[in-house]
């Protein structure tokens, strides 16, 4: 039983650009990838969303025709991570894949060039395994918007109890599609401009797309960050509306902090989708945990809501912030807008940082909270 599991590397491809370092630099410069999008292939009316620029990356992946767009994004992200850290791809390496909808764009879509069976997540996992010749079949996690953070927790558990594995790659991604955009539109969940997490005038989310990966090891390395505590509890309230008392998230944070054994994180990287209900729920949960004064941000004002990638992308960026001792502001915030106060970070600030709390919530009433700490 190995109790200490570390994140020793990360890599992302997002609408802000290719690579973790570039992405973090863009955050520091307050770039946002959210812009107006008018694309009948996504939506019959204009929306604000964050899209990955095809010209930035499509030329970087081989065997293009064999793999779907999302698979190619996964492949490129993984290749970069593997190269950066010389990760062996043998039986000692566990791979966890997080996605909410995978290749769903292939389903019933008259413009698809792949058979419908490819829309199934195991087919996507197999394509990725096949490309890299992975020793172990990847394990897909599909649990709504907590998938990315949950996948980290799954990897941590498996590394703890299964001595066959020494390391794990946790990679997650989702892409924009008519399937997803139309659904959130039917929920009236899309903002009519750039999203405003925690703000008084927030009126919904922006969708984004990304692939993000973290590299876990049972051995610490220089600059490693330890996964100190995880808690995950369902609200048992409603399948799409979060609990008004933030019950599930409250229990999750309490458990993560109890396991971590630390009293206070130095900042919170919240889920912060900018819907009226989610942000209110998080504020209530943070207050119940005594965390109202902790510097808090949501990164969704820069990337949009990247669904199956979000837990991983935002964790990776928060890790960079932690290592840089730098608080990243919450984009889109101007006036307090929750019934419980929050300490929303509005300016970049350099100060000693040791640990942070990452939260995520999703449809189905699920929640997860994770404490990360510098080694």
């Amino acid at each position, binding site marked *: 039983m190995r109790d200490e599991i570390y994140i020793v590397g990360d890599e992302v491809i997002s609408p802000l650009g290719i690579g973790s370092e570039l992405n973090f630099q863009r955050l520091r410069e307050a770039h946002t990838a959210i812009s107006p999008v008018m694309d009948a292939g996504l939506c019959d009316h204009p929306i604000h969303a964050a899209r990955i620029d095809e010209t930035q990356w499509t030329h970087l992946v081989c065997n293009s025709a064999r793999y779907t767009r999302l698979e190619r994004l996964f492949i490129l992200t993984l290749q970069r991570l593997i190269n950066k850290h010389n990760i062996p791809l043998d039986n000692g390496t566990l791979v966890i894949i997080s996605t*909410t*909808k*995978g290749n*769903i764009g292939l*389903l*019933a*879509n*008259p413009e698809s060039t792949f058979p419908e069976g490819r*829309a*199934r*997540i*195991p087919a996507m*996992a*197999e394509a990725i395994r096949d490309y890299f010749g992975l020793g172990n079949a990847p*394990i*897909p*996690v*599909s*649990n*709504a918007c907590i998938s990315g953070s*949950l996948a980290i927790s*799954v990897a941590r*558990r*498996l590394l*703890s*109890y*299964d001595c066959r594995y020494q390391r794990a790659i946790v990679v997650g991604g989702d892409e924009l599609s*008519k*399937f997803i955009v*139309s*659904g*959130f*539109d*039917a*929920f009236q969940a899309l903002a009519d401009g750039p999203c405003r997490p925690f703000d008084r005038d927030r009126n919904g989310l922006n969708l984004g797309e990304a692939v993000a990966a973290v590299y876990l090891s049972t051995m610490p390395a220089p600059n490693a960050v330890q996964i100190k505590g995880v*808690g*995950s*509890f*369902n*609200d*048992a*309230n*409603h*399948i*799409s509306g979060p609990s008004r008392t933030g*019950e*599930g998230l409250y*229990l999750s944070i309490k*458990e993560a902090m*109890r*396991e971590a054994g630390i009293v206070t994180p130095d900042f919170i990287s919240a889920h912060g989708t900018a819907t009226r209900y989610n942000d209110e729920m998080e504020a209530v949960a943070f207050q119940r945990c005594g965390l109202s004064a902790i510097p808090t941000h949501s990164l969704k004002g820069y990337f949009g809501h990247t669904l199956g990638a979000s837990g991983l992308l935002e964790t990776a960026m928060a890790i960079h912030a932690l290592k840089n001792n730098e608080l990243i502001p919450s984009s889109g915030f101007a006036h307090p807008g929750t019934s419980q106060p929050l300490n929303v970070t509005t300016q970049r600030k350099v100060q000693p940082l040791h640990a942070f709390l990452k939260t995520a919530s*999703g*449809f*189905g*009433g*699920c929640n997860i909270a994770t404490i990360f700490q510098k080694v």
Partner: protein
Amino acid sequence: METTNYHIRSYCTIRGRTIRINGSYFYTAGTTMPLGDFLKSAYRQLAIDYPKFHKMDGLCKAVFIAAELIARESGPYERNTSLIFANRSSSYLADSRHARDIFRADNPIASPATFVYTLPNIALGEISIRHQLQSENGFFIFDSYLPEFMVPYANTTLKGQQAAHAALCGWAEVTDETCDVLVYRIDHVGQWPHSVERLKRLYNEEDE
């Protein structure tokens, strides 16, 4: 990894148009009965008043019925019963319905009630609400039922401080052509050992 003190307390299978609880028949219908009708009449057999059932998609309905029968058979669930499930096709029924709605040539319109079910873990949300379970959820996607993964993983959710006192686990593959559901309750006590070998036997039971 097989050293465990956990047991299967109760299990439910839904295969084709037959539902069994702990191996005994609960309900069976003709093989040509459409899935929706089958699940609706199975619900009526339960004789409960839960109108939200009718809003669920096929995957959620099947998991709901299995969870209900297990509770009926072995007692109410503890609040902290972890939910660990897997299937092959995710939320395929709701996915294809939503896809049809948005790609149809004549008046394509998305339905929020359909879209909300296009995530497989909603099934876990539904039983959490029904049985008031505030616990950890995990939905995995495998090519076929994989007790080699499920057994040790579910066992891990029963350890440590957050420890569930029990777990409800399942393989729930529900599509147009397939209804292949095995849901089982894990606890410290129970009739059968919580092991890969036993689960393979339960899973293949009806094929014998």
